[in-house]
């Protein structure tokens, strides 16, 4: 029998000391991309933003030039419509700061 025994520290426990925005990207990919990646059919965040902005702003969050860490934090902690807020066991304050850095234009 081939058993794979492995203790995996999955995302929440990940320790990243490096560049904030690098960790922010990882946070984004884990928690946001499933709804905000390109392609509205399978990504409800993207399709809702297509309807809100009708092309005036990019529908994909990563392509936005007007996001600030404060704005990102407000949406992440309050949620909006069908997007629920995220708890601190999911996205810690440090994760959130890194996520804000990643999504704000450099």
């Amino acid at each position, binding site marked *: 029998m081939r058993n794979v025994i492995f*203790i*995996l520290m999955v995302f*929440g426990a990940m320790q990243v000391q490096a560049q904030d925005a690098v960790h922010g990207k990882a946070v984004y990919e884990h928690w946001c991309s499933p709804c905000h990646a390109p392609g509205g059919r399978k990504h409800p965040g993207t399709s809702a933003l297509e309807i809100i902005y009708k092309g005036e702003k990019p529908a994909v969050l990563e392509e936005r030039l007007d996001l600030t860490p404060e704005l990102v934090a407000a949406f992440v902690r309050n949620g909006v419509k069908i997007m629920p807020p995220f*708890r601190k066991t999911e996205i810690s304050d440090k994760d959130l700061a890194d996520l804000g850095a990643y999504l704000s234009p450099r």
Partner: protein
Amino acid sequence: MRYPPGVSQPDFDRAVLEFEAAIGSDWVFTDEADVDLYRDAYSPMWGEEEEKIPSIALAPQSAEEVQALMRICNAYRIPVYPVSTGKNLGYGGSAPVLNGSVVLDLKRMNRIIEVSEDNAFALVEPGVSYFDLYNYIQELGLDLWIDCPDPGWGSLIGNALDHGVGYTVNPYRDHFEAHCGMEVVLADGDIVRTGMGALPNAETWQQYRWGYGPWLDGLFAQSNFGVVTKMGFWLYPAPEAFRSGSVQVMGYNDVHELVRVTARLMYSGVLNTNAGVQSPIQFVLGQNPEMAERYDRANAEDIRILDEFARSIDTPFWASQFKFYGPREIVDQSWEYTKRQFAHIDGVRFTDGENLDFPMPYEELMQTQDENHLGVPSMSVFQLGNRSNFNPTGSNGHLGFSPVVPMTGEAVIESNKVLGRVLREMGGSTVFNVPPYSYHQRTFTILVGFTVTRDVDANRKTREIFRELVKVAAEHGWGEYRTHTAFMDDCAQAYSFNNNALLRLQQRLKDAIDPNGIISAGRYGIWPKHLREDDDNA
């Protein structure tokens, strides 16, 4: 800081210090802004007095920490509400049934303890999501599929404990049925392993489910008897191929034969997954008042005219979509065999659907009709109630009414009429009405989704309709398979054989196992003694 009911402020203040000593103050959330993140984001009572809001939240990292917390809660009789990933949106989210309970958030317990490729199982902690397990299997290149519900961010454990469901084959798609072995912390902090796990050094905890003596696992689902800290799940060895196809029948009365044959194929294992019954003509009927009236009345003359109408616009009255998973030859032959079983129905039509071979690259899987049916977790289902061209303002989530009905043509027609009538008469605003679908083996479940808003009056109206649906469904012998925390008592009351004998037995067990009644009071209608005596909660 908010305080839980039934605990004095000094006691609770002391308990908080003990919580902090047990798990570290970073993981004891007392700040209201932090605790508000545990409100039910899709609450149908948002902002009302009745909304369920926790007092504080605790986030332990191990079963030992859970034990320590339970001992403290038990000593001070603090009501506690465990959640795994707390994503039970549509069914109450992470908010407790008893207002002011302390949420026990198990998200940080996120270890995948073991995955066996050859014996096809996983042993996981509560914080492990479907995304986590999928990614783990992909990274190690294991030849296994998971079975996931539509939203990928939920947990295997939380989903299974609420009798959640997915879309591949039996027995994996009914997630509680797919589990094998549990570890549970009880109200007094004792820790138990069920099944073969009771044997120290057990080698078959995740393979042989019954263990020795009475099987107790069922006690811990849809209930409040313990905090589950580990659970095993059987996994599906990756199939070689998938195909789908649809069978359409033209006449109103053909639904009986369509469902009878479908059921037979399922019970004999030819069809090994879910199927439903849709009515392609329903939308057109809805636009035509005369036909809608005939559909609702459906006497012999109405049916003759309805059938003529269906034929005149060349639209089938009913259709079922079938899926096959497995070796290529078997999948192909199963579809051929299935078509032959329906061939005797006058005017029947068949349409081939997707036809896929695995393995397939992730990007291609995400281009298929529904990746969740191929064991790929995603979030695409959140299109439900989302902003769209038809619904440019969107919603604040939904609420699911989900009664179980028999797998018969009569039940398809009857449930559709009876529930439809309540919805029409009471003016409900539903987001979706999923046609009868066999989420579980041998039955259909009807899923009526209500829009949740931030408008108090609209939400009140929805609750009123929901309660009426529960009552009317029960009169017809249909009960909910699962419900939102707002309606746990209503649905439990419907299961009232012999003066609620089942609920009374559950409450006797509750009093024995959790005598202080601290765990998830009120979940699935099971209230502990001290809250039963209080008329407000009885």
